[in-house]
């Protein structure tokens, strides 16, 4: 009996102790944050004058190796990196970061807490600290990064730092990356590296291939157009669909022979993409296929065909004609919807 009551009291005691401990910690953290804000206020004018080139050097006693000052400097550089976009300022930020934060970041990369290591990776990228390039590459190659998130982030950072080693070995990384990460890498790498991947396109895995096609759409580089058209012949459905999407985004209207076969594809995604491309091209040659597709068994295809027809100069007439004469009820409904949507086009 007494034992039970003691256990209760001990438990309560432990919890109370934890509470007091956490509250004290909270008060200390709150104070610390306040102090860092103060230091930032002292340091900000001099630092920004230096970054903007109005001052040759920084003479400020708050620029030192004290942990609070380091944190203040870090946050100020972060602030500067997000508002000062010029190349000069960027280089100066990198210089300052390499001088004052490098050691601290090496220490933090070895820390036990996941979030600490991740945050440092983000900072290295933001401050463009090339000195970490080798270190990160080694960690990646030796599988020394502890979590998947760190692995992909390290890859992103290396791409930003234009790591030669990453460009060389990206294809052989095991396990392969996800599409999103491949695209992130392509976005970060400079043109030379990216052109290299396109040259070696056939050697890549399908996910990487798809990433390249989609990335091309983002670049808005019309010089890649022949490359994309080439991909319409890929045996892999996903790649063909991705290529069709890019052509649509580019407003591709050139050669109807390239896309015409997709209007009777066995896959609805390809028929739908054909309808979309036809709507962008507005060529009379596509009209018979579109009037067929508006009665397609798949809703998405019908919808795209309706939208495409509506974009033709005489679209209203064609849709009206379908409503009056088409034998398919779904086709009539779809035509009616698109005919009306013209009235409520929203500017």
């Amino acid at each position, binding site marked *: 009996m007494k034992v039970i009551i003691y256990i209760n009291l001990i438990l309560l005691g432990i*919890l109370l102790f934890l509470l007091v401990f956490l509250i004290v910690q*909270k008060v200390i953290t709150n104070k610390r944050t306040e102090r860092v804000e103060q230091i930032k206020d002292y340091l900000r004018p001099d630092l920004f004058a230096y970054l903007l080139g109005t001052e040759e050097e920084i003479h400020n006693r708050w620029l030192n190796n004290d942990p609070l000052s380091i944190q203040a400097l870090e946050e100020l550089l972060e602030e500067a990196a997000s508002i000062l976009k010029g190349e000069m300022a960027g280089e100066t930020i990198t210089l300052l970061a390499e001088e004052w934060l490098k050691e601290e970041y090496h220490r933090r990369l070895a820390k036990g807490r996941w979030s600490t290591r991740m945050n440092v990776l983000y900072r290295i990228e933001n401050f463009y600290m090339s000195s970490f390039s080798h270190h990160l590459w080694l960690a990646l190659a030796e599988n020394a990064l502890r979590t998947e998130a760190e692995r992909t982030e390290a890859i992103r950072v290396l791409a930003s730092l234009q790591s030669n080693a990453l460009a060389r070995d990206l294809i052989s990384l095991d396990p392969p990356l996800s599409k999103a990460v491949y695209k992130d890498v392509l976005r970060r790498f400079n043109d030379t590296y990216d052109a290299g991947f396109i040259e070696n396109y056939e050697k890549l895995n399908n996910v990487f291939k798809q990433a390249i096609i*989609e990335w091309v759409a983002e670049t808005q580089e019309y010089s890649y157009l022949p490359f994309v058209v080439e991909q319409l012949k890929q045996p892999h459905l996903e790649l063909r669909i991705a290529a069709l999407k890019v052509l649509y985004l580019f407003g591709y209207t050139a050669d109807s022979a390239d896309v015409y076969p997709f209007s009777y594809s066995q896959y609805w995604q390809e028929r739908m993409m054909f309808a979309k491309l036809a709507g962008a091209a507005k060529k009379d040659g596509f009209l018979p296929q579109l009037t067929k597709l508006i009665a397609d068994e798949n*809703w998405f295809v019908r919808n795209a065909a309706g939208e495409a027809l509506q974009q033709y100069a005489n679209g209203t007439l064609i849709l009206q004609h379908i409503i009056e004469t088409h034998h398919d009820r779904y086709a009539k409904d779809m035509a009616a919807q698109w005919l009306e949507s013209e009235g409520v086009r929203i500017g």
Partner: protein
Amino acid sequence: MTQFISSLFTFLPWLFIFYTSFVILFYLVILFISARQLRSEYGFNSKEAEEDLLDSFDTKPVSILVPAYNEEAGIYNSVRSLLSIYYPEYEVIVINDGSTDKTAETMIEAFQMVKINFVVRTRIPVAEINGIYRSTIYENVYMIDKKNGGKADALNAGINLSHYPYICSLDGDSVLERNAFLKVIKPVLDSDGEVIAVGGSVRIANGCHIEGGEVMTVGLSKKPLVVMQVIEYLRAFLIGRIGLSRHNLLLIISGAFGVFEKESVTRIGGYRTDTVGEDMDLVVRLHRMIKDRGLKKKILYVPDPVCWTEAPESPLYLRRQRQRWHRGLCEVIWNNKDMLFNPKYGLVGVLSMAYFFLIELMGVFVELLGYLLILFGLLFSFISVEITVLIASLSFLYGSVLSMGGVLLEEWSLRKYPKPRDIVRLFFFALSETFWYRPLMIKWRLEGFFQFLAGKKDWGEMKRIGVGAKTEAK
């Protein structure tokens, strides 16, 4: 007879003791798993990861479904705040589920909506639709005006209309953080679509300062009933869901906030309309689909609070909510009883479903038993003083100590409440839980159980104050 009663009184206390000890142990294990995971993520600068997403072409467009039944007070603010979230491509679909007030009129007027003749792809059958409207000011705002069919039916109608591959259901009384979608869609992108549902953590908005749909400062309400609900949310979300999510066992994606892959949802026929636990039911059936078809898909949970919801402040509405929740839980387990303890469904069947049945559902009866034993033990000394004290201690441990643990875990890992005073208040309210809040909950949940037995299906009136509207007026 007397012998039967006396052996009953030796048996029942031990039943309670073993059951409660087991449950407490279970919770402690989960608490430990959650604590480790949360702590490793402490201070993570998620903005960095989200920035990349915001201007990437990879984010999947999302259709936000807002079912509305008599929400004329809050609907404008809800939709307004949705229009300012950070996400590259989304649409808002309000489903007016046969409201008897001016919900539809408010929407039409505020967003200058016009009726459109849209061909809806009816993949899930729903109640009759009166009309579909689209805003002339915001291209991505739609409203479906339909006959009343319940929340699940409204959501299904929204799914039919939606244009995008991912859907999110949102209650009219919730406020989303602006980066909520970036946070929850990230696991989907990182996994190349392997993750088919993501739940975000929900917090209570009462007491926080909200402006233009954004939580400016996090505070704690002065009302004891609300503080207790905050503690409940902390306990449930921090302890339960993270521990379960790590092993792909998550069973509830709260009705207040979750993002689902539309294809998977339509494949299983959308939300189930004959239950009040439609949100949980959907997730259970998604798990079922994953196992039945042997898919390599996942359901995840993001611990960051991304959605703020209005908690009922009066006993009347809290009671209705709890009755409904418990009834929903019973219905979900009943409707999916073949999954319970079924090894075919792996850990979901033998652990998650078992947890919801044995702990969440049956727990009410055992907790009640505990209180009765203490009461009778004291009054008539049927049972020894030692046993009574033991039972009381376990009740205390289960009711209060675990909640206090939840509060401490929040402070140790997430630190959403900036004022030390709020933490102290949360802590001592948690301490008081066993003595008044738990008994109340037991009573209301039992009522919910009996409603389930009686086959009650309707929702019961809910009064909305309108979170955004009220706090903004201050």
